[in-house]
């Protein structure tokens, strides 16, 4: 309990330093663009592959479970869309990003810590926490929702492929399903969750990397801790935000 409270305290203190005004505006903007590329554009491939296949699987499973004549065919498209927008594209994709992006952030900053690069930044009089972590947080908040919207589109497209090529339902029934009663608030809810998850992934991973101490082994441990803690917090906040918003 004491350890958990100490960790939370350290995290809050670090975030206080992170959220200060950046040293140089143009440098900060360049860093954000670099991080958008590193954290977001680099993740596009894995997000696209997972989204298409998951969309197809959701469509097939829904089709398999709704064989009753009482259930209309468009249910497959409707259920696929709802599953993808409400849960899959934000939570599952963010869990995958926690693994990919989280470990990258923690190991990058952790390596900088153990090779004294962070000390070098501090000696120059630069707020190292702000310089290293804030651009990643801002980039995450900007690019993760874009990835999630792309994931939504590709997931629904994956279901479409399943409908068309695997004869789960007819394409027209699938189309009727995905266009039935679309509530824009659901997309808003999904993006709000994504923003919260991106804050968790980037800040928690930055925290564990920043306080890595020792050598390669500790950097590895920091990276693992970052992924595990980000994933747990994503699951926890998923419940909290869902309860609050729906």
């Amino acid at each position: 309990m004491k350890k958990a409270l100490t960790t939370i305290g350290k995290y809050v203190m670090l975030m206080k330093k992170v959220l200060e005004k950046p040293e140089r505006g143009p440098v900060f903007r360049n860093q954000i663009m670099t991080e958008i590329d590193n954290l977001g554009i680099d993740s596009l491939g894995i997000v696209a592959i997972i989204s298409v296949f998951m969309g197809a699987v959701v469509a097939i499973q829904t089709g398999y479970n709704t064989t009753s004549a009482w259930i209309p065919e468009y249910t497959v498209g409707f259920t696929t869309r709802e599953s993808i927008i409400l849960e899959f594209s934000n939570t599952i994709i963010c869990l995958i990003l926690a693994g990919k992006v989280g470990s990258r952030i923690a190991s990058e900053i952790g390596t900088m810590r153990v090779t004294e690069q962070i000390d070098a930044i501090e000696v120059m009089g630069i707020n190292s926490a702000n310089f290293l972590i804030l651009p990643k947080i801002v980039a995450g908040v900007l690019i993760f929702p874009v990835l999630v919207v792309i994931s939504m589109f590709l997931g629904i497209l994956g279901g479409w492929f399943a409908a068309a090529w695997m004869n789960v339902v007819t394409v027209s029934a699938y189309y009727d399903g995905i266009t039935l009663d679309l509530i824009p608030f659901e997309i808003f809810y999904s993006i709000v969750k994504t923003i919260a998850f991106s804050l968790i992934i980037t800040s928690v991973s930055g925290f564990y990397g920043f306080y890595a101490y020792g050598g390669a082994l500790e950097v590895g441990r920091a990276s693992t801790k970052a992924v595990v803690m980000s994933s747990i917090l994503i699951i926890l906040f998923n419940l909290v935000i869902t309860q609050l918003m729906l």
Partner: protein
Amino acid sequence: MTNLIIGPSGSGKTVLMKCLVGLLEVDSGQILYDDRQFTGMAFKDRKIIRQEIGMMFQGGALFDSMDVEENVMFPLTMFTNRSMEEKRDRVNFCLKRVNLENVNKLFPAELSGGMKKRVAIARAISMNPSYLFCDEPNSGLDPKTSILIDNLISEITQEYQMTTVINTHDMNSVIEIGDKIAFIYSGKLWWVGDKHEILDTNNQELNNFVYATELTRRLKK
């Protein structure tokens, strides 16, 4: 003036240096930079003094994601409003000063140990510092490269009229460039003197340190 802090491994040399540059807070005592109180100063106020400090870390601490030019340019980008051309000129001047040329586009992973140290010195002097701190500049280097680095630091110190503090346990450095030497033992200041006095001292712990090797014992005889 080149000041050397010597002492066996684990004696507290690096901790002392980290305290001097403000990476660690001191439990007691005070640190003054030309009568300016550094101890207990707020981060924002320390910034002014820190911009007068250049530091070379043991492993170089070059930024892996940046090439040599960007590494040396980093302090200039962060703290000056110079144009890219002016910054590039300054970078080339600093690299030339440490006898490195045509390495601008190489990354730290592509450099040898000695080259990394020289790039670190170039980065440290890019802002014309008044104080230069070097943490074990000779560690991991062959004797010839060690002497080159020592001489380079000494020349730069004279040229820029800087106060240089070096952490080392290399006796060659002590004899070559030590204007003032402090011996640290078990976390305490044990002895202060110059390079002539150190060879004739009666201090037992210092003698054990200075004459630890067969070579130095023979030289004494």
